């Protein structure tokens, strides 16, 4: 992505005395992981294109604590939460959009009792709003039209928060041929990354979860496996490699599809 991205920080906004419309919560994966950074940039590209008045916390953002909590370290989670809430509240943040379902779930559901009350949206929900309100338009004739796409529901977006439609609505807008896996929506199989699994070797078994999930996806014979989570993305990308299909199938975030659809 060669074009210049406009990414204001909350600190800059504050210095200019203005309050942005939304805070884009980038998340740890979105900030540091090479693959996830591309998703972050794709989403910013969309925000820029739609002229959304947003900001990021930048170096003031810290891990939400989701993984620590799910690993059982409630202490570390709450330390992270309280620290983040202090920063968010100091900037009087009201609305947060994030491209990571884990951040989404934690900010939306687990921060309120600790003093952090915000309207939190997943980026697929927000992009839908942009389209509906006419702030963002998608060309009918775009690069992805007619492509076979299957959508992998991230657990923390789907089952955890029952957001099934938003990402699918975006795929529909692109005019792709959406093919569902046998296990989808409520019964979607996990990619294998959640609950801190991303950071450790799996226990002994006879298969890796991401390979099993990739097999689900391959059965739909897709051109593209779409998802809405940086961790799912990594797991599915690895799965496609394990199945030696990386030359035929790409794994993309819904935001990347939208951003590159022109």
């Amino acid at each position, binding site marked *: 992505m060669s074009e210049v991205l406009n990414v204001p920080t909350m600190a800059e906004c504050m210095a200019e005395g203005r309050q942005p419309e939304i805070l884009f919560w*980038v998340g740890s994966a979105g900030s540091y992981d090479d693959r996830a950074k591309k998703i972050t940039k794709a989403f910013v590209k969309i925000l820029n294109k739609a002229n959304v008045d947003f900001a990021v916390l930048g170096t003031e953002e810290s891990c939400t604590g989701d993984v620590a909590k799910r690993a059982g370290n409630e202490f570390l989670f709450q330390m992270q939460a309280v620290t983040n809430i202090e920063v968010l509240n100091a900037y009087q943040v009201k609305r947060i959009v994030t491209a990571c379902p884990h951040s989404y779930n934690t900010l939306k559901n687990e921060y309120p009792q600790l003093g952090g009350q915000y309207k939190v949206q997943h980026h697929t929900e927000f992009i839908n709003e942009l389209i509906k309100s006419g702030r963002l338009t998608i060309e009918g004739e775009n690069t992805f039209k007619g492509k076979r796409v299957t959508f992998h529901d991230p*657990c923390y977006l789907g089952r955890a928060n029952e957001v099934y439609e938003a990402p699918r609505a975006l795929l529909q807008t692109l005019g792709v041929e959406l093919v569902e896996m046998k296990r989808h929506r409520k019964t979607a199989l996990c990619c294998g990354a959640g609950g801190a699994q991303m950071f450790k070797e799996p*226990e002994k078994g006879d298969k890796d979860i991401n390979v099993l999930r990739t097999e689900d996806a391959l059965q739909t014979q897709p051109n593209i496996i779409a998802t809405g989570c940086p961790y799912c993305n990594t797991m599915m990308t690895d799965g496609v490699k394990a199945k030696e299909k990386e030359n035929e199938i790409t794994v993309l975030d819904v935001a990347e599809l939208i951003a590159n659809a022109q």
Partner: protein
Amino acid sequence: MEYLPNILFAIILVAGIGYFAKNVKKLIRNIKLGRDVDVSDNKSERFKNMAMIALGQSKMVRRPIAGILHIIVYLGFIIINIEVLEIIIDGLFGTHRIFSGIGATYGVLIGTFEVLALLVFVAVIIFWIRRNVIKLKRFWKSEMTAWPKNDGNFILYFEMVLMTLFLVMNATDVHFQTMNSGNVISQFIVPWFNGLSEGTLHLIERSTWWLHIVGILVFLNYLYFSKHLHILLAFPNTYYAKLTPKGQLNNLESVTKEVKMMMDPNVDPFAAPPEGAEAAMPEKFGASDVQDLNWVQLLNAYTCTECGRCTSECPANLTGKKLSPRKIMMDTRDRLEEVGKNIDANGGEFKDDGKQLLGDYISNEELWACTTCNACVEACPVSIDPLSIILEMRRYLVMEQSAAPTELNTMMTNIENNGAPWPYNQMDRLNWKDE
């Protein structure tokens, strides 16, 4: 002597119900061993869930074959039990088919029962075939050996016998057959007994009548020892089930207090506790045994039907890991029973038996294999939450024992030092913008 059967009946009835009541008391006591949890909110939503999920079986039909068969057995079971009311009155007062006086409606009622009885019989046979001939995978996992496996079959045999008794009882009831109203199914059984004298028929009718009611009482008392407890507990269990989004895991209040104290510069950590505040032992973080779980989680354990829908959708189990959410529930119940027996044996006090749920029942390996994906919670037809137990036990492992896998410890150290699970500098968090 004429009243002997009535007296005998009354004794059996009182004994059967009495023993059941005793076990129910034990059940409630055991569930109350759990920690307290506030579930007094949102009563109307809770009632709605109970009506939909327990009464309406809405989650059962997600798997249509098992779902519909289950509804037949369930409805049949409940409705046919109206007949038990008549049996009890007849038994106590020496009447015969006391309700038959209500006229044509009686025929309709009994006719319905007979049709249901046949349907139940057929459904139960299909269930048996699924378990034992087709051998559906979820009924043959490693935790489904010995008692759990037999339990599943016993209950099916039980139903078959009870339904047969009911139909034979009607078929051999000469008085009922001559009424010729409501004998929609039993009339086809009558020919089996052709040629028998009226006395013999009466004897068979009486025997089946007795066996039927005794069978029902035995069944009632079998429940406490069986996965079939769910026919009762599914109701409170769906009522008390989690209402918040599945992804929301509870925040530990005891931790919140400590964190607030650490973050608050005005709090003097060495200050003496205020007057009157008890210097209580700090609450244990997480759970290593059943008493550390909350009572809804213990109710969950007693409610589990061992159907294995959870395990059959668990990504860890599907890829050959040891973790099985059904086993988590079965282990919790087994340990809770063990603790209950321990209390009974020691005059109402639990004596340390050197065992606990963690380690003796559930291994670390199982706990660490969970992806917290909620597939088990979503799949459970009676709203059980195995994930919450797994999380509590992980909390104990990490916060009380620092026993997380090494890689996770590294990850957590990274979060502490850099605010990210990877070893990157927080000051580099915005670098992506210019890359």
